[in-house]
């Protein structure tokens, strides 16, 4: 996979969504580039998660969606379920907020890491196993071979989130959507995950959509930042610009609400 800067790996255009008659998204535009982390911020309920789910076609029961999500020259929204299934996990992967709930509690780590490999890449059991161990090593799980046999509840929160990331990366996707991957974790653990994400993005040329409402996290890893409010993207731009010289009053109010004035460095 070659990461050409400037080419959109995935672009969302005019995405509208209503769930059970309630309008949730009113025309969202976003575009992700390979090798870059795109941060998506905004208050609770503004539609960040729904945007991410729409890309994978995993919207909740009773959703109606319109617009266009272009990926590899095709519109994911109109894609038949079977084909979309071949994109999910293989080309576009997702990491969820709470690692305690996003891994299946009754299946071993190995199974959760390898089953979609077999499915998407057609690799054999043994090879999948080796790759899985490699992946665990890459996300820095100690003792990867042994870890494969264990169940998620035998790991700490941070470890679980690393495993979830490994699962997402198993089929070498081009796009990774991470929905608040660190909100459920402690700051010290969060730092590790953020470093991991940044590293993967740089090394593998992934296009990452990082959903978070923590502007500090945003500032630490995102290249581009978009701010959402009430189902609309109100501001998009490079990290430095959006966080230092916000154009939209809403972004400014977000920054003003922060306890520590921006610009003041921590020791």
């Amino acid at each position: 996979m070659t990461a050409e800067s400037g080419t959109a790996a995935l672009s969302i255009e005019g995405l509208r969504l209503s769930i059970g008659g309630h309008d949730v998204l009113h025309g969202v535009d976003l575009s992700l580039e390979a090798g870059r982390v795109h941060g998506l911020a905004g208050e609770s309920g503004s539609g960040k998660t729904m945007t991410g789910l729409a890309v994978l076609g995993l919207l909740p029961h009773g959703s109606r969606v319109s617009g266009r999500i272009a990926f590899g020259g095709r519109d994911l929204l109109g894609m038949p379920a079977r084909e979309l299934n071949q994109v999910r996990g293989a080309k576009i992967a997702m990491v969820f907020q709470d690692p305690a709930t996003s891994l299946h509690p009754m299946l071993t780590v190995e199974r959760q890491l390898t089953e979609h490999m077999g499915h998407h890449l057609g690799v054999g059991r043994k090879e999948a196993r080796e790759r899985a161990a490699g992946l665990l090593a890459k996300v820095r799980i100690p003792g990867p071979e042994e870890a494969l046999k264990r169940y998620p509840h035998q790991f700490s929160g941070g470890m679980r989130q690393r495993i979830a990331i490994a699962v997402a990366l198993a089929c070498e996707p081009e796009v990774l959507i991470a929905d608040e991957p660190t909100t459920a974790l402690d700051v010290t653990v969060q730092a590790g995950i953020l470093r991991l994400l940044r590293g993967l993005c740089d090394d593998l040329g992934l296009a990452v959509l990082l959903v978070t409402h923590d502007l500090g996290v945003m500032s630490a890893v995102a290249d581009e930042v978009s701010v959402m409010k009430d189902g609309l993207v109100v501001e998009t731009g490079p990290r430095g610009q959006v966080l230092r010289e916000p154009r939209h009053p809403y972004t400014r109010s977000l920054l003003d609400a922060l306890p520590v004035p921006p610009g003041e460095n921590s020791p």
Partner: protein
Amino acid sequence: MSPTSAPSSRRTRNRALRSPLARFLVRRIVTALLLAVGITLVTFVLTNLVPGDPVSANLGQRALGDPAIVAQWRADHGLDRPLPQQYLMHLEGLLHGDLGTSQQSHRPVLDDLAESVPATLELAGAAILVSLILGVGFGVIAALRRDRLSDHVLRVLSLIGISVPTFWLALVAFYVFFFRLQVTPGSGRIDPGMTPPPQVTGLYTVDALLSGRWDVFSSAVGHLAAPALVLALYTIGLLTRFTRSAVLEVLGQDYVRAARAKGLPGRVVLFRYVLRPALVPVITVAGLAFGSLLSGTVLVEAVFAWPGVGQYAYKSATTLDLPAIMGVGLVVGVVYLVINLVVDVLYGVIDPRVRVS
């Protein structure tokens, strides 16, 4: 840090408590034994509250006139002793595997139970099997086709299932299928002319298979069909509703979304990711439902002339046959224990968090 952390940590702790298998088993068995003793105590007290006197229920008109016979009978059955002593005698007998002699059948209660319990287990077992297959199947379909026509239909049907009076349904089924349509065989466990298969398990279907007697097997299955279905209707309704909501709940879980985000085919997601955790509550309910089946048998057995514990219990209760009632109580306790054990073992099979400490 999340608001749910406290209760969830409590839950994990309880699970871990179970994991050392031996300790857990011992605890369960002790509880069950206490339960059984409790049950016998309750039945003992209850039946002794009764205004009637078992003597008059069990002796002929003339024999009752003879105080010597009455006294003899009382002495034979230990009824001349103070109540606590009677109860202790009963418990002591229990320890030696002696459940006493039934006052109405004049046979050891154990023998009576050995005949009637398998009959009921066969009936209830067939019913639970049918309920599990149909109930879980319907529940999954309803959940997957949520809010579509089939979901609504199944929902109404399952509500009807839990609303039909079993005794009435048994009557209607017997009348319609046996009498009017003549599709089901009559009362009893096998055709009247047939000799029961040699007893191994006491379940005629199984025993017939074991001894290779196909005619008996088909007759037993035929006789089983109608009462088992009548009995199952309620549990089918119950399990359908339960499975539906359990599956819906699991479908809303992050890990299912994550599995779908991995691009796994729907079938794999359903069986590996959804069904397995959804079965956990379903198993609990199925275990409890088995108890309600035992209740249902009392009513169904009466209509289908099924020689099971239900009939035995009914007869014992109305004739105040104390040893028999206590025997039934004990059986019930044992069944409860076994069901609980099975349910717990199944938990372990399904959920590694129970298995792996």
